[in-house]
């Protein structure tokens, strides 16, 4: 235990850190300035900084929102957080997908939930689509909360050696820039086609909708392919609930020039990403801010709240901010500490004004 003038907090990797008030306040100011400078959004004002300090510096183990300000929770990886291995932060509990869904509804107080393939990606669902439709039908008969199908677009699976298209990273190393761009464009078309195949079928089986998780993990072409896939789902299933969540605060420009609706998507930040998500047909958008393990919780949370608040200021859609391991200010750890998670959760609701998590 350190002196009473110091606060027990966390590093970005989850380890314990002691800071005095001046250090914590400086990290909050630096974090918000970093996000504002990167994304072109406003920094947190003095009242918001004081509020954030109050949340982070609380001596309590658990911090929560004021009563009446609770929000909706949505989920990624579905039942894999019970049945999966540690790659999905799963507990390795042998259980059916129906049991996983019911436990989340009736024990873990989930507002929504989803069905997920073990690989949690669009591409491997195709060969087992009938199995997924069967389970969707069965589980929908038993569950009361909204129940999605969830998967990552994960366009990296379409590149060599796993997929049919040339790998842009390899091609660029050989200075074949145009060829790398063409392979990414072909992959994006294929991804959109696969999204249409999978998402419309699980909707026909009774899904309330689809959760596109970790969108743009393979960069700007992944984002464009996903947006076109969302368009196709919306056109065929106008009443589907569509949640589109991102992989990072900034769309990586691996292609560099690919466009959606006349807009180059490389380098877009959350307040710009949400505009395209709405155009494509999403109902709810999931902004992301990645955690820097070398910085404190105060720095990371201030930075994340600034990105997301900037998005909330312009968004017409409800926002469900991504708040898993290593995003939304939460430390990058397989077992993120309760004290850190509850502080991040509270700050996103009370300062960033999100509609859900």
């Amino acid at each position: 235990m350190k002196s009473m003038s110091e606060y027990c907090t966390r590093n970005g990797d989850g380890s314990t850190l002691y800071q005095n008030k001046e250090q914590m306040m400086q990290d909050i100011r630096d974090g918000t300035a970093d996000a504002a400078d990167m994304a072109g959004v406003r920094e947190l004002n003095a009242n918001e900084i004081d509020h954030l300090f109050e949340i982070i510096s609380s001596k309590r183990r658990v911090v929560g929102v004021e009563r009446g300000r609770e929000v909706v929770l949505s989920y990624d990886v579905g039942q894999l957080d019970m049945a999966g291995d540690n790659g999905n932060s799963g507990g390795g509990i042998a259980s059916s997908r129906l049991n996983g869904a019911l436990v989340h509804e009736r024990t873990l107080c989930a507002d929504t939930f989803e069905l997920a393939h073990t690989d949690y990606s669009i591409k491997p669902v195709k060969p087992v689509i009938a199995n997924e439709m069967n389970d969707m039908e069965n589980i929908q008969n038993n569950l009361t909360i909204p129940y999605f199908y969830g998967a990552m677009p994960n366009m990296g699976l379409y590149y060599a050696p796993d997929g049919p298209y040339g790998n842009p990273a390899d091609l660029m190393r050989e200075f074949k820039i145009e060829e790398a761009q063409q392979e990414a464009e072909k992959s994006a078309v294929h991804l959109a086609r696969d999204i249409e195949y999978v998402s419309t079928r699980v909707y026909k089986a009774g899904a309330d909708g689809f959760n596109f998780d970790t969108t743009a993990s393979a960069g700007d072409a992944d984002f464009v392919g996903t947006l076109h896939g969302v368009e196709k789902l919306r056109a065929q299933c106008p009443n589907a609930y569509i949640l589109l969540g991102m992989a990072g605060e900034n769309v990586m420009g691996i292609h560099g020039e690919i466009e959606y609706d006349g807009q180059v998507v490389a380098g877009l930040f959350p307040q710009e990403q949400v505009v395209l998500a709405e155009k494509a047909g999403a109902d709810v958008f999931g902004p992301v801010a990645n955690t820097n393990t070398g910085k404190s919780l105060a720095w990371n949370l201030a930075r994340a709240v600034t990105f997301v608040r900037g998005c909330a200021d312009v968004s017409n859609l409800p926002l469900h901010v991504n708040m898993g391991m290593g995003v939304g200010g939460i430390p990058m750890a397989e077992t993120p500490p309760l004290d850190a998670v509850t502080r991040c959760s509270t700050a996103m609701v009370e300062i960033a004004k999100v509609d859900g998590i």
Partner: protein
Amino acid sequence: MSIAHFVASGMGGIRAAGDLVARMEFDQRMKIDEAKDYVAKKLGVTAFDLSDECKLREVREEQGLGVITGVPGTPRGIAAKMNIEDLLGIKINCCENFRNYAKR
């Protein structure tokens, strides 16, 4: 992770009214305050009440909306969702399928 977020900021799903508010966010693109006001009005409670387990436990059972504990003889799953459709004035995809399968 699920527990930490529920404790800090969650509405509690069918323990309270989180599932109903979620449906309005997704079905009508309502933001959280608008969705809460809409659901509260339909349930005959205040928006503040929507995360109150004590209040909503009775309301959900009375209106057949599904409750979190195992109460024999009360609607759950597809039956509860059909009651939720009527309450919120929306159509739920799997309920439409169920009616089609049953030829009702």
